[in-house]
């Protein structure tokens, strides 16, 4: 069974990664990153189960906390930039280049 879980985790991770690449809205992009983190969580939990120790599960909790913190920071940034530009598109923020 572990393989299936891992495949699912891999798929989630890949979906997240592809989402980051193809979505323009900063919020969605950010959600995709969260999806990737959750894919990691799934993998951790799966491995914890397979290996038979608790480390993986503990890590999952930690990751959740970190992700929550990330949300706070990320949303603050995105909201600020939205207020300034009236757009949440990541492609619109394109002044810094070359």
């Amino acid at each position: 069974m572990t393989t299936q879980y891992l495949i699912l985790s891999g798929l989630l991770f890949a979906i997240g990664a592809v989402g980051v690449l193809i979505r323009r809205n900063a919020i969605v992009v950010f959600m995709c990153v969260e999806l990737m983190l959750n894919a990691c969580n799934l993998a951790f939990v799966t491995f914890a189960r397979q290996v038979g120790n608790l480390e993986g599960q503990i890590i999952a909790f930690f990751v959740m906390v970190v992700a929550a913190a990330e949300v706070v920071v990320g949303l603050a940034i995105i909201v600020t930039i939205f207020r300034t530009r009236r757009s949440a598109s990541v492609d619109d923020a394109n002044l810094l280049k070359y």
Partner: protein
Amino acid sequence: MDPVEIIQHTAGGVIGMSWLMIAFPLLGATILLVFNRYTNRWGHLLGVAMSLASFVVAVLAFVQLLGLPEAQRRQAVHLWEFIPGMVDMGLLVDPLSIAFALLITGVGSLIHIYSIGYMAHDPDRRRFFAYLNLFVAAMLLLVLADNYLALFIGWEGVGLASYLLIGFWQFKPSAAVAAKKAFVVNRVGDFGLLVGMFLIWTTFGTLAFAELKPITSENPTTLAIGLLLLLGACGKSAQLPLQSWLLDAMEGPTPVSALIHAATMVTAGVYLVVRSGAFFFPEGSGAALAVAIVGAATLLAGAIIGCAKDDIKKGLAGSTMSQIGYMMLGAGLGPVGYAFAIGHLITHGFFKADMFLGAGSVMHAMNDEVNMRKYGGLRKYMPITFATFFIGYLAIIGFPLLSGYFTKDGIIESAIHAEPVLGWLAVLGAGLTGFYMSRMVFMTFFGEKRWDKEAHPHESPAVMTVPLIVLSIGSIFLGGYLVLSNTLLLWLAPAVGRPAELPGFHPFSVPGLSTLALVAVGAAFAWFKYGRAEVPAVQPRGSFLTTFARRDLYGDALNESLIMRPGQWLTRLAVYFDNRGIDGVVNGLAAGIGGSSGRLRRLQTGFARTYALSILFGAAILTGALLLVGNI
């Protein structure tokens, strides 16, 4: 018989002080150059005094040398360590060098005196005397040096003095160009001398004359050395194929032409060959033959050029080339020839200086006009100049019993004896000499006046005419004194060796008579063409042969098309290659990096998602690479 061994001079006396000969004029030059315009008022006098002082030392040394037995007549005077382990600075006082020293300081002093008058109106007279003094010093170093390196220093020193003096009126572009040309062409010869020294030092481990041994048979090395030295001699003595500078060198003031380009410096090549004779030019060797051939070729070439020149100084220059050709021919014949070559060198020093100074006197009188077509009939206006010039003329064409007659005849006789073909060419050359010198005398002093309107010829002041007189006296008697009873030959024997049998004097031999006959024919021809007939004031077109001679046998044209033009091309090509090729690569590399930088920074599009993509790609590549490496 080989030359006697050189012994180290330890006793005192003038020989030990012979460095004073060089020091006096050097001091003069230094004072005049360093103290510059402060010495303007008396500078010329100092110059003359220094030259005379040098002459006095030379005479005293000569006297002391006379007092020594023959086996001790080669005295080396050690001065200081020059290049440790290689060569020391030292002088060699022997019959050969002292003969030269006497000529240089003697004629040199006369020319110094003459120049006081000749340069009286030049604002830079002081500088002129400085250079003259410098020349005398360098020339003395050349002939007194006891090794090739010191000789070379003198050799280039006279080259420098010659450069400075040819270009003395440097504000004339022609003078500046001529000066540079003289130096550069001389450097070609110097190249030979330099490489010759490499070979000498490598082969024999020394550059000192005292440590070289006379050779009897030639080997490839000595032949190579001989030919290289000959190249050097050709440069300095304006022998074929390095003759072209001498005619241009007439841009210098006339006393310079007399001293440097007639009497002394240009004979340095002959000196070099004679000095090295025992080591590298043994009698009958290939190297010696090459010397003789060069001499014979040049004596004809110079004579031909002399026939066509309307410029009095250039005519004399051609004649100088030709006469040095004679000396070279003599120098290529071994000890017999040496004596005649040196003899001719000395007498030539007198009569050619005499004539050059005479020409200078004429020019002085004719507002510096040099074109003989604008002279004519001057003998009445400048009697002393005419008389002295005429004596010189007789001497050079070999009028019996005058100086040139004895020495030149000696060379011709010896040449016919050793190398008949060359000898008869020399006879032919004598005939040509008769023609062109007569042409010069007739055009200048005889016939109608063809002067410019402004010309008011007058006799030169005594300070100029007295040296002329002294020189012409030498031109009359010196030859006979030196040659009859082999005075010079015996005197030089300790230095250059003595031939197996002493040559006799045969005034009525076939070569002697035919020479005289040819000279007479030449002179007569000149009389008909230039003495009796009217000389056109404008140069007629002339035949092909005349043009050939006028254009210096196309020597300059040849140099130009063979060396200068390709050289200029090469230079341009090299500069272009340096700027575009090498520097182009360097700058191209920089531009290439800059360009790739400009392109690479475009990858930084500013879109966060592109960056994310690059991270993803990077991750994929990293993973792929790790998997790949892991599975190898």
